[in-house]
């Protein structure tokens, strides 16, 4: 795919597309809201609106998936949370900050204890669990998911 010139019309829902090589006909594409940029696919001869937020979100998701896999491979046999978290891949996930939270919460039901350390680091908070539930990863994950819902990270 290659980017092409875009001239916005006075109406934000429309965009007037002119080709840089001027060898093709002008196209008018409409979209609401107006995308951040348009991308023209040379093979299919179609124009698609791209939002920066979509692109950013996809990038974070891919990075999260790659780093998670790397981290799990490196730390599979480590038992303590602090030992598991002492990994550059895990540090990078924490470094994603709040962008990583929806992805972490999406995985939390299945992977439970993998993410408690990162959640505490990113959110700078901790959830309360009853004394009798200490160490019960399912109860701790439930408490975090409740926190995630209240905070708008879990739909």
């Amino acid at each position, binding site marked *: 795919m290659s980017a092409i010139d875009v001239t916005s019309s006075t109406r934000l829902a429309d965009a007037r597309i002119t080709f840089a090589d001027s060898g093709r006909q002008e196209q008018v594409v409409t979209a609401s809201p107006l995308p951040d940029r348009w991308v023209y696919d040379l093979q299919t001869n179609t124009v698609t609106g791209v939002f920066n937020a979509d692109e950013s979100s996809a990038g974070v998701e891919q990075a999260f998936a790659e780093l998670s896999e790397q981290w*799990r491979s490196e*730390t*599979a*046999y*480590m*038992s*303590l*949370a*602090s*030992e*598991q978290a002492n990994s550059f891949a895990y540090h990078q996930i924490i470094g994603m900050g709040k962008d990583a939270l929806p992805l972490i919460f999406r995985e939390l039901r299945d*992977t*439970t*204890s*993998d993410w*408690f*350390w990162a959640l*505490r680091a990113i959110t700078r908070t*901790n*959830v309360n*669990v009853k004394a009798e539930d*200490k*160490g*019960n*990863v*399912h109860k*701790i994950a439930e*408490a975090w998911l409740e926190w995630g819902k209240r905070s708008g990270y879990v739909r």
Partner: protein
Amino acid sequence: MSASDPLLIHFPKLRDTGYDETSKATRDYNCLAWAAGETHRRWDPNEPNDYWPAVRAQTIPAFIAAYATRRYTLCDDGGLEEGYEKIAIYAIAKKPVHAARQLSDGKWTSKLGRDIDIKHPTVEGLKSAVYGEVEVYMKRAIIP
């Protein structure tokens, strides 16, 4: 057990002794809980919401104190003693990172991180860059 087994890459001494897989992988408990005979929760001094029955510190004295709450006392070695069960605490540079429990036949059982439980013939089998080596042995009388 095959040459490409990732366990043997991390614990190369298991190549000599072999091991048996005794459970599927789970995150419900960890090695420290498994050594104490528990499978319903994790023991971890560094994770505030995990269970830990002593002062929260990743030190040998704190680990000794934790297992002392389960009647374990220090002992000299990991040899099989009739009427007793033993645990071995592994450490890297005096920092405890793993624990194994002796079985009635003298072999040992370990939960390996997020992965499986195994039965391994010797404590040396897990001596590695991951777990270091055994720093402390503890034992308790078996209550009939």
